[in-house]
């Protein structure tokens, strides 16, 4: 009963400020780590929640971390959300750019990780290179280190 209103509470906070990292963390804790069980629609609701909030603020790291968290803790392959991530990461496609035109290093990173997990190392490396050279230059050094390890 202590937890009864907790999910509603944390959703209210996220609605007020979608970038509130504390709220996203707390939601993850409440849903996955507090020992509360929900109905069969559990995972579906969480995916939907994450995706909706990503659509409000596409470059919000907190929401993307949360999405990763859902996949990790339930052992779901990242490829499950590939089509969704591609929408936000693939700036080469004109049709996609009509939907989402925001430069999005967080999504590109996610897509690169999906490629890597599916064994498409060449495509992953291309994306890491684009991050190092263009979209996320502040982390150029670590990416160059990672590139040489994975090739």
């Amino acid at each position, binding site marked *: 009963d202590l937890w009864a209103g907790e999910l509603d509470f944390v959703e209210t906070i996220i609605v007020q400020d979608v970038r509130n990292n504390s709220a996203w963390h707390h939601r993850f804790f409440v849903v996955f*780590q507090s020992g509360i069980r929900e109905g069969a629609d559990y995972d579906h609701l969480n995916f939907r929640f994450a995706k909706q909030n990503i659509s409000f603020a596409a470059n919000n*790291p907190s929401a993307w971390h949360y999405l990763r968290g859902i996949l990790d803790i339930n052992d779901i392959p990242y490829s499950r959300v590939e089509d969704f991530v591609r929408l936000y990461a693939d700036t080469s496609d004109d049709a996609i750019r009509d939907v989402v035109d925001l430069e999005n290093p967080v999504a590109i990173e996610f897509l690169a990780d999906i490629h890597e997990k599916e064994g498409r190392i060449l495509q992953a490396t291309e994306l890491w290179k684009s991050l190092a050279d263009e979209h996320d*230059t*502040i*982390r150029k050094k670590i990416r160059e*280190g990672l590139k040489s390890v994975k090739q």
Partner: protein
Amino acid sequence: MASTSQLAIPLHVSYIKALGDNKDDLAYHLTAHLRMNAVYWGLTALCIMGHKEVLPREETIDFVMSCWDDEAGAFGAHPDHDAHLHSTLSAIQILLMHDALDRIDVPRVVKFILSLHQPSGVFAGDSFGETDTRFLYCAVSALSLLGQLHLLDGEAKERTVNYIVRCRNFDGGFGSVVGAESHAAQVFVCVAALAILDRLDVVDEETLGWWLCERQLPNGGLNGRPEKLEDVCYSFWVLSAMAILGKIPWIDADKLTAFILSAQDLEAGGIADRPGDMADVFHTLFGVAGLQDLDPVYCMPADLIEKRGLRKPWKALERRTE
């Protein structure tokens, strides 16, 4: 002529020296509750800038001893203030820097520290019971600096490490208590405590290393968690954690250095949390710490820690020769 391309050491030294002079300022009295900590921040900064003599030894030691809470057997932050783990650690650190550890009643202090150890493994800050991984670090560091870490043994040590493990979040980071959000300062205290306890094996180095390097913003500064502003003190919390994990090359050091230097107050001295804000002694220490020889585990002059035989394996930023 001071510029933002180098550390204006003489200016910062005189800034710290002047801090104790303004006893008529209301701000001086409003900060009485952290006076011991402030002296530690100031003295450490002076030491690593090579000007320890600016805070007179006897006067400083007298101040520390005047904060002894004889009822509790430990140090408060100010004369007549209740003893607290944090101010006790600062007192130990100050006396160590002045080679005056012999002034401490070690058995009583150790008793105080161990009395704050909770069944869950965390430490409370004082008899009022607030628990936080920061206090866990204070306890472990204090015992280690006093050469008494062996008294936290077997089951007690295991309990302490397990608490930290339970604070580990899905992003690899650590929070202030179990279930709390990952935060760079808590990451530092947990990682440094694990380093002192030789239990870095419980850290997911890849995931945490990545989370830490994501703290760097395009302007070169570091923040404490996602979507927050850059702040000079994270140059210490984040950078030290990365040094301990051996992941320093993952940070863009040049941009970070440029950011720290741009937060200097080139008129009155001192360093602020970000360019344009007011300087304070806390950010002065942690800004300077990003650039000079500080031991990242104990946040003390590196040579002093080395001499005491407490140096752990860590790799710091390559120092620029100026």
